[in-house]
């Protein structure tokens, strides 16, 4: 790559079930302004905008970036729209990083949002289309059988998912922007209703309104702030929803995505060289599954890390310091929130949920039927 790329501004809205107080332009504007302020910049400084959001049917505006261009000060600038299902927030940040690294633009604003309260995601995900099998399972119904497979394959402790739910909600209590602030005990989580056996209510993510933005710049501009987060590696990988011999519990695309990003960042031993990770965990059981998929644990061993408390904020390998998707889930923005939290950690600006001395962090997103993956590695060192 031609240029180094640094994150020098990060902003997000307060996430809530419904931000009825903000229009869609107001929502994206709120996150973008916070990122610009953090970067000590104004709209005029921005060369280019990269925006991501989940299916347009969630808000009923086709290619909403066209309409939102005024709110984003985009007139006379390039604005680019990415859509890769649930991983979109991550892959949007990857495109923004590539614009800087490739020398195409020097100062890029990237943003992701979702205003789920404008519609009903369950409707938008499952219109009754002729010839398509009816959705009989609901959102969790697709993933519950995979989790059952994981538990069987790894002989995992049945409380693992509950442990993650407790830990992520405790972390979320430290994050004023998080949607859910829940002080739950293990017993309370275990007693919550079983929705999609083996997934309990307290082991699922919420549905949120929210937006997040970052300012990415080349070397020349990184000195505007004293603590840039340097992008050391990016990667995206995709596999098909169904194919013969597909391992849906530990998908090859996720493994390769991790291999690519560690390779680019020069990481050979993730557990030693990475200080913390913010990973897309929409159902709590995905923490142990992704610990294995991303190379933090051997196959079948991920649940032990969780049960031993290693992924807690004060553990050896903190995961989802912000509370993660389990506390905040504006779908199109969820991936970028993970990437942004990784950058906040290495900038030392994560406030109450800061991991002491974090220097290298991973951000991760996935989408579709565990088939679209995006990751980045950020570091306090160039």
């Amino acid at each position: 790559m031609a240029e180094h790329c640094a994150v020098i501004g990060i902003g997000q809205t307060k996430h809530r079930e419904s931000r009825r107080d903000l229009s869609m332009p107001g929502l994206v504007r709120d996150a973008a302004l916070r990122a610009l302020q953090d970067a000590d910049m104004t709209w005029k400084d921005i060369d280019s905008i990269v925006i991501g959001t989940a299916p347009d049917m969630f808000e009923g505006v086709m290619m909403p970036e066209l309409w939102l261009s005024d709110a984003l000060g985009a007139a006379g600038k390039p604005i680019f729209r990415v859509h890769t299902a649930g991983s979109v927030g991550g892959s949007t940040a990857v495109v923004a990083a590539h614009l800087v690294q490739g020398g195409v633009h020097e100062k890029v604003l990237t943003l992701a949002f979702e205003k789920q309260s404008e519609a009903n995601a369950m409707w938008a995900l499952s219109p009754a289309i002729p010839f398509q099998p009816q959705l009989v399972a609901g959102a969790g119904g697709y993933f519950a059988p995979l989790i059952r497979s994981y538990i069987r394959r790894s002989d995992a402790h049945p409380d693992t998912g509950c442990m993650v739910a407790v830990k992520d909600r405790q972390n979320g209590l430290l994050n004023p922007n998080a949607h859910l602030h829940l002080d739950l005990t293990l017993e309370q989580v275990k007693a919550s209703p079983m929705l999609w056996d083996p997934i309990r209510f307290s082991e699922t993510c919420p549905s949120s309104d929210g937006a997040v933005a970052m300012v990415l710049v080349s070397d020349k501009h990184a000195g505007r702030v004293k603590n840039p987060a340097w992008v050391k590696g990016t990667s995206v990988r995709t596999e098909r929803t169904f194919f013969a011999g597909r391992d849906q519990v530990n998908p090859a695309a996720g493994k390769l995505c991790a291999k690519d990003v560690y390779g680019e960042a020069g990481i050979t031993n993730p557990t030693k060289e990475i200080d913390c990770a913010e990973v897309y965990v929409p159902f709590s059981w995905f923490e142990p599954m992704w610990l294995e998929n991303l190379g933090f644990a051997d196959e079948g061993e991920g649940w032990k890390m969780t049960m031993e408390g290693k992924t807690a904020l004060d553990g050896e390998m903190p995961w989802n310091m912000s509370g993660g998707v389990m506390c905040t889930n504006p779908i199109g923005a969820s991936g970028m929130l993970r990437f942004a939290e990784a950058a906040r950690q290495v900038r030392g600006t994560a406030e109450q949920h800061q991991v002491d001395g974090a220097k290298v962090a991973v951000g991760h997103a996935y989408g579709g039927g565990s088939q679209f993956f995006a990751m980045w590695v950020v570091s306090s060192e160039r």
Partner: protein
Amino acid sequence: MNEILSAPYVLEYTYTRSTGPVVGRFLENLRYEVLEGVKTADGRVLCPPLEYDEEGEPTTGEFVPLRPSGTVKSWSWVQEPRKGHPFDRPFAWALIQIDGTDNAMVHAVDAGKAKRMKTGMRVRLRWADEKNGTIRDIACFEPIAPFLPGPVHLEYDVNPGKHYTAYLRGLQEGKFIGGRDPEAGKVYVPPRGADPMTGNPTSEYVEVADVGVLTTFTIIRIPFEGQKLTPPYCFGAIVLDGADTPIYHLISGVPHDDIRMGMRVKAKWKPQDEWETSLENILYFEPTGEPDAPFDSYKEHL
């Protein structure tokens, strides 16, 4: 027999729009037949008011009352209105600069005849009889001389493509049809365009059994919007004998506590005279009573 299937499909939904302070105030005032513009930082007046002007600057939030009249800046005559148009008789679309403003509003002009339309013509606003705080509270213009419903209704005609059609035709005859690339030999149910391992078209159709192994499953205990069944019910992945990919269906005819990974199951078909081109020809899968498949035999499908 392989005539492509086709069916009407309507995408329809009413969104709940959060309008924010500027748009919300404007639309709410329309209910009371009050037309206002918003001032920009550089002193211009915009109607319809925007939160952010074309330079990306926030507007001031200072509103000014406007006369309900204006000037046509551009127009288009529609002789035969489309279904979603504001009139079912001939009318004009127009960009209308409301008096005292610096931008233009898109709206309809009820002019009766195309001949009455002219750029520069003066128009007055006609209010709708019933108002609900939307832009349609302005019924239209005529020659003078914070929630907003955003309904979407689009009529499509969709078809499932060649391979899926073959699959559905098979179901109509009580058969499961899969597709395979002869080179790779893996059988995809339903057939898809290409084998992902080779990229070759899955050009051969093969019939697979309606019996297979339940590889994994969930018990659904949550009610949700659009749900057709009453929870709890079981939904599982089934690898049919002869297939290399799972299909998903309901599992029934057995107490939930007895459902196991590896259980052998068989399709429970509807009566033959009710068969259509649909997976719904199968009510559910039920146990065959055969011994369970060993874990190793299906673990690659998990």
